[in-house]
Structures are given as structure tokens and as C-alpha cells.
């Protein structure tokens, strides 16, 4: 089924949504199911996972055996179109004096980065919304866990998330009937669990947006859309048509059978089925247009195929172009205010955060020469460690926690899979080499930490006064500096991983925090550049993603997050977008917008 039929726009819409990723896709679905006329504008090309995903393709079918290249930094088959650390013709810069350049990952395709994300879907916990009250750092959220938890429930039911309730403080459980069963752990994961028991690190079922069994479309649709028969009908059918995971193929390539969550497989098809959604791809939004009354009247975009400038109009504008792009659009919308749109607080572009990341892995002798076993699994992690030292920060010397992602074992061989032979069997050739390859293949395991960073005044983005992209739009210039909290946290990660590895029988030398911490932006959890808050003077939006300055302008992506808990952001972006879309429709009904 083609995702787009016509390149058409109407003179006027109820809502324009900029961006088709997690936030944009969710807003489009909820609004369209409720009868709103929606125009989605996406800078990238149309993308059809059902026909384009290279599900079973093997490396020998690809240049360089599928290895990464500058144009495909995560490998040939990765579901990133026209993107990566650089987008051709759309540069960004780093300000002089920055400590380690910020890396900005983008893709230019329908569905954005949801086509290839890791599908790790963790709820923020009650403490995360009250972080400043607990340790005096950063800011609190203008909402509590109780405000958002029903929306987490809904999102998990709508997109399908596998996992288990482990009852760990600040890693919330889901209500019964919400989660799908988690797949069983693989050999390395069991060994890690055992090591975790010894070292006091809990290792439990991961939560990922992957279907481990068919969806009960009828039941779920009824629960999710109680007073909306049309929505029930569309969603019941669409959910029932999604296949569960068949335990093969890397989720990063996307999923043609719709077993995992992508905006293009889970949100956009049913949204289109309502007949209420139009989509324009290859359309790069330059700015939001503001009328004489200070309200948004629409957006100005560049039709990339013709290089024509076009204006589209609506009663409400939602920006969901991804954290940094959304604040870039605001900063570039200067019709009334030199500081940029919705920026009376001066916070647009500020408070940029990524996750703290570092990893450590090792050869594990006990994994050598095991009988062949299919370990493809769910195309991503089956287990993880939620942060387990919530009450011990006073002792630790850093304020916030991290979770651990982990993996190893016998995955589809890549160019680097047998690099272990360079050290373990460096001089062999012939049949002996092949025996050693069989012995050492997959006998390794690694841990990666994802930790919470605290917003600081040195981490921000702004417009570069001297550079524009190929569409003539001023580009972002980043500035970055880690605080001691992040450095110490990275060091703690390294030590924890080394302990786990030693316990598994491997050898590891932990690095210092400074040496270990990955680059700013490299974990690709960038959030915070238009944060929500209690007051207009200190934040860009209220708790419903509505900008304080422009009532009919909403921001529905990671830009509104006031803090960046260690739990990867996408589930929260989805929950906020749904909650805010309901609020938005309510306000429209009341005549407030």
C-alpha cells in the first residue's frame, strides 16, 4: 500500500504538523481519528517500509559487505535515508570554544528516526518528574508521574511493547494487560544475569516496542477509543493486521511485517485510513507564519522537488521536527520578535541535553565453542538493568542514574565480527584458522550505559550568523560542556561494566570518565531546547506542549522535555504528544484556540 496517494493540499486545515517521526506521527493519528483535518509536512522523502525494508538481505548483497560508510554510518542496510551524522546540503556548526563537537543525527524520510531506532521503551519514573526537588539540580516538570502514567498505558497498548514488571523503584510497572510478554534471554544475557546477581546489579526483561505475539485489535481499540466507533473500527483492523516478531532480522533495518514500532507502520497508515490526513513529503519548513493578532496562521515551506516556496494554512500549528529542528524553526521565525518565535523566556535553543553514554565489552571464554543456536531474537536487547542505586547518590558523587543495555553472542556476521582473531589467533591460516573462527565467533559480550545528564548553561544551540543550508535557511551552531556529574557517572559505568565482565570470566580495563564518555549527541537522545514549565518566564511551553506566547502553536517532540532521565525519550515523546493532542482538541472545542 503506498503511503501517499496525491501531492495535494487544501486551502485551510485544522492542524498542520511539521515532521512525521514519533511526535508528529502520534499527533497526526490522534487528531485524524477525531475528525480533525490535518496536513503533515515532512522534509524527507516518502518511505514505504512494507516494500523497501531489506529484511533478509545478507551482507554479500551489499557494497563493502554492508559495512558502514560516511553516507550510511550505521551500515548499508540501516533504515536511515539521506541522513546520519551529516545530511547532504544541510550542515550544522560548532561554536568556537566548545568542548567536543556536538554530533547531530538526522534522517530525511517519512517516519523520521522511528524507522531505525532501537525500540527501547522505558517509562520515566515518579522521581524523574520531581528531580530538582530531590537534589536541587535542573528543574522540575510541570506535571507528575500520575499525570502521565495513563498516557504511558495507552501508548504501550497502541504501539505494543514487550517487557515485564520488575517492581524496581523509579522504573514503573505497567498495569496488567498492557505489556506483551518479553522474549526469553539468550546465553550471554543469562550469563550477565548471573554475574549481576553476584555484583548486585539487577538484570531484568527489557522493554521494547516489538510485538512478541499478535495484537488483540478489537479489545485494545475498544479500550483506547471508548466513545469513537470510527476510531475503533480503523484501529481494530489495523492492529490485527500487524504480525508479531518472527525472531530474525535486525530492527535497525525497519520491519516490513510491522512487528516493531515505526511511525510509518503503526501511526501513519491508520491515520491515512481516516481520510483526514494529507501528507506532503520533500517539503522543508522554513518558518511559522504569524498573523497580525500574534497567532500562528500556518507555515512557510520549500518544496524541495521544485524549489518553490509555499505557504500552508491552518488554525493550529504543531512543530514535531525533532528537538533541534523544532527550536531551529522557532529561532528562524522572526516575523515579530528578533529573539525568535515563542521565545519571550529566552529558553529556545537552551538546555540541550543528550544521554551520557559509554560502553565496555570483552571476549568471554565460557561462550566459546558452544553448539550452534539461533540467537537473532527480537533484533535488539532482551534484558537490561534499570538504575538500581536510586537512594545512594549522596555516596556516589554524581546526582542522577543510568540504565545498562547489553548484548553479545552469535549475530549475523559483519565485517568486524571476527576481529577477535587478530588477538586470539593472530598467526594461523588454513583449516586451523577456520576452527578458531568457529571457536571465537560470538564469544563476546558488552555493556553500554545510558545516563541522565543535568542541563547546564554551556550546552545550547543557536543560529549560526554566517551559514545557511542549501535551502537558504540559517543553520544551528552548537555549544557543549559536560559537568562533573556526567564524567563521574561515566566512570561509574565503566567500573560497573568491568566488574560484570570479570564476573562473567572476561577481562576488562575500565577507562576514566573523561576518556570513556562518548561524544555529545552521539547517543542520539537530544532533548530540551524548548522546555515545558510552570511559568511563562522560565519555559517555552506549558505541560500540554502549548507555547506560552502563541496559543495555537504546539511543540510535540523531545524539545519540550525539561530533564533527560536515563530512560530513552521516545516513549515519553509519544505519551506527551497524545496527551497534548487531546488537550488541543478540547481547547478548540471550548473556543479557546
Amino acid at each position: 500500500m503506498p503511503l501517499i496517494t496525491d501531492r495535494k493540499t487544501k486551502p485551510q486545515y485544522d492542524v498542520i504538523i511539521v515532521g512525521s517521526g514519533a511526535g508528529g506521527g502520534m499527533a497526526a493519528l490522534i487528531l485524524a481519528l477525531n475528525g480533525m483535518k490535518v496536513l503533515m509536512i515532512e522534509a524527507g522523502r516518502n518511505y514505504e517500509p512494507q516494500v523497501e525494508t531489506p529484511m533478509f538481505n545478507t551482507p554479500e548483497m551489499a557494497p563493502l559487505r554492508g559495512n558502514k560508510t560516511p553516507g550510511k554510518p550505521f551500515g548499508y542496510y540501516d533504515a536511515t535515508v539521506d541522513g546520519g551524522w551529516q545530511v547532504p546540503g544541510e550542515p550544522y556548526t560548532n561554536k568556537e570554544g566548545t568542548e567536543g563537537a556536538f554530533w547531530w543525527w538526522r534522517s530525511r524520510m517519512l517516519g523520521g528516526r522511528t524507522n531505525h531506532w532501537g525500540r527501547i521503551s522505558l517509562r520515566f519514573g515518579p522521581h524523574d518528574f520531581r528531580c530538582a526537588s530531590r537534589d536541587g539540580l535542573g528543574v522540575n516538570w510541570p506535571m507528575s508521574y500520575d499525570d502521565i502514567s495513563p498516557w504511558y498505558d495507552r501508548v504501550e497498548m497502541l504501539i505494543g511493547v514487550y517487557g515485564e514488571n520488575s517492581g524496581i523503584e523509579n522504573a514503573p510497572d505497567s498495569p496488567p494487560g498492557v505489556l506483551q510478554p518479553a522474549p526469553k534471554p539468550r546465553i550471554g544475557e543469562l550469563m550477565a544475569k548471573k554475574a549481576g546477581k553476584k555484583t548486585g546489579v539487577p538484570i531484568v526483561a527489557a522493554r521494547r516496542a516489538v510485538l512478541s505475539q499478535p495484537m488483540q485489535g478489537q479489545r485494545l481499540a475498544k479500550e483506547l477509543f471508548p466513545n469513537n466507533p470510527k476510531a475503533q473500527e480503523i484501529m481494530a483492523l489495523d492492529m490485527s493486521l500487524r504480525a508479531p516478531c518472527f525472531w530474525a532480522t535486525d530492527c535497525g533495518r525497519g520491519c516490513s511485517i510491522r512487528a516493531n514500532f515505526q511511525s510509518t507502520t503503526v501511526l501513519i497508515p491508520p491515520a491515512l485510513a481516516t481520510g483526514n490526513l494529507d501528507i506532503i513529503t520533500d517539503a522543508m519548513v522554513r518558518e511559522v507564519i504569524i498573523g497580525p493578532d500574534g497567532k500562528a496562521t500556518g507555515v512557510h515551506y520549500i518544496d524541495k522537488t521544485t524549489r518553490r516556496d509555499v505557504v500552508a494554512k491552518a488554525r493550529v500549528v504543531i512543530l514535531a521536527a525533532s528537538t533541534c529542528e523544532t527550536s531551529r524553526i522557532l529561532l528562524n521565525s522572526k516575523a515579530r520578535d528578533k529573539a525568535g518565535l515563542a521565545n519571550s523566556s529566552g529558553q529556545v535553543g537552551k538546555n540541550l541535553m543528550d544521554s551520557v553514554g559509554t560502553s565496555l565489552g570483552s571476549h568471554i571464554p565460557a561462550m566459546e565453542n558452544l553448539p550452534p543456536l539461533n540467537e537473532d531474537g527480537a533484533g535488539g536487547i532482551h534484558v537490561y538493568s534499570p538504575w538500581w542505586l536510586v537512594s545512594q547518590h549522596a555516596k556516589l558523587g554524581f546526582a542522577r542514574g543510568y540504565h545498562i543495555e547489553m548484548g553479545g553472542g552469535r549475530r549475523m556476521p559483519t565485517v568486524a565480527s571476527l576481529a577477535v582473531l587478530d588477538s586470539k589467533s593472530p598467526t594461523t591460516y588454513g583449516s586451523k584458522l577456520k576452527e578458531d573462527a568457529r571457536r571465537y565467533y560470538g564469544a563476546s559480550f558488552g555493556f553500554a550505559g545510558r545516563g541522565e545528564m543535568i542541563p547546564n548553561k554551556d550546552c545550547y544551540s543557536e543560529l549560526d550568523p554566517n551559514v545557511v543550508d542549501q535551502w537558504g535557511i540559517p543553520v544551528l551552531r552548537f555549544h557543549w560542556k559536560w559537568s562533573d556529574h556526567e564524567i563521574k557517572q561515566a566512570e561509574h559505568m565503566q567500573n560497573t561494566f568491568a566488574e560484570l565482565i570479570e564476573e562473567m570470566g572476561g577481562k576488562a580495563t575500565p577507562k576514566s570518565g573523561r576518556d570513556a564518555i562518548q561524544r555529545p549527541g552521539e547517543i542520539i537522545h537530544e532533548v530540551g531546547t524548548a522546555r515545558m514549565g510552570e511559568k511563562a518566564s522560565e519555559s517555552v511551553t506549558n505541560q500540554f506542549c502549548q507555547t506560552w506566547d502563541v496559543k495555537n502553536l504546539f511543540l510535540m517532540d523531545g524539545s519540550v522535555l525539561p530533564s533527560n532521565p536515563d530512560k530513552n525519550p521516545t516513549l515519553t515523546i509519544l505519551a506527551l504528544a497524545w496527551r497534548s493532542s487531546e488537550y488541543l482538541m478540547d481547547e478548540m472545542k471550548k473556543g479557546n484556540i
Partner: protein
Amino acid sequence: MSQKPTSLSRRDALKWFAGSSAASAIAPAIIAAPNETEQAPPSFPTRSAIYDPNFAKPVYPWEKVLATEELKTANSLADIILPKDALGPAASEVGVADFINEWISAPIDKHEEESEIIRGGLSWLNTESFRRFEKRFEELTPEQQIQIVDDICDATKSKPEHHIGAIFFQHFRSLSISGYYTHSATWKGLGYVGNISIAGPYPGVPDELIKKLGLEDVA
């Protein structure tokens, strides 16, 4: 879980990116009426082989450097490193030399360094073969070939006069391993049995194995 990006060499960056213009044009000021109805856009308006490859028709956007003679030498050395045996096909049956050729020809910094080592090394190997036996490497008898290979397979022990050959062998062996095991025809021998669909729940680890590894308390 991120990986480090590799960098393009400056020389080839231009060649590589040609067509995906990075020029910064000032946009025209014409504003069209927002009421167009046009044909659906082609799915791939200006598809780049680098940033948006067509998986069904992969393109290798660079020239391969090795000459036929060099490829012959590469094939015969690769087959000594990874011969046909009970654990799978010979390197030459799964395109290892072609992969090495493709790899060292790619306009990427790291690969260019490797290119010098590999090409220089292949020539070194033939020179050494001539010096000892007055023939190219691929024309030697298996015993003669092994005699040379044994002199260069361990860079920590090789004689000074074989040092260049030994460094080359290390790199060539690594690339051969990469090329060999990324071909699906070698996976059975390696012990990779995935990339097939399984119905029902994920089976997990068999009980005997759990027992053997002493993992009963965590399974």
C-alpha cells in the same frame, strides 16, 4: 548503541558528494497558492547511491583498483588462508579477493591506507616468489607457497627481510576473514544459524545447555 563515523578523504569527498550539492542558494521569494493537486511524487526524487541506496540494485560508486594479475595473486593467497574444507568453501568461491579489491578501492581514509599495504604487499609477494622460484606466487606449487607464507605469517617472529611481507599478511588475513564470513555460504561452518523466521514465542536456550553452563538459577 552508536558507532564512530569514518571520515572521507578530502580528495574523494568531492567526487563522492558530487550531485548532492551543498551549495547554499538563497531561496526565491515567490509564494505559491496553497491549493495544488499534483501527481504523487516519485518515491525517490533524487536518490543518492551513497545516502539512499536502492537495496535491490546496489551500486558501487567507485572504481576498483586491482589489475587482473593482482587479483590472481590475491585469490591464491586467500585460498591458502581460508581453504575449502569440512568447515566451508574456499575463499575464492565466496568472492574474498573481489571484496578486498572493493574495500581497498573505497574512497574512505582508512581504506586508502590499507590499499597501499595490500597492493604493495601483493607485489612484494610476487617479487619474493620470483626471487626464490622464478615464478609468480599463484604459479608456485603448494609447498613453495607455504614456504613463503610460513615466513610471513607471524610478524612478531619474522626475519627483518620478511617484515614488509609479514605486515602485509596481517592486513590481508584480516580482510580475508571479514570478506569470507560476511558471505552467507560460510555461516553453517562458522555456526551462525539465524536469519530464518521462527513462528510462535522465541525459543530461548535449550535446557541441556542451561544446565551445562550452570545457569539454572537465572533462566
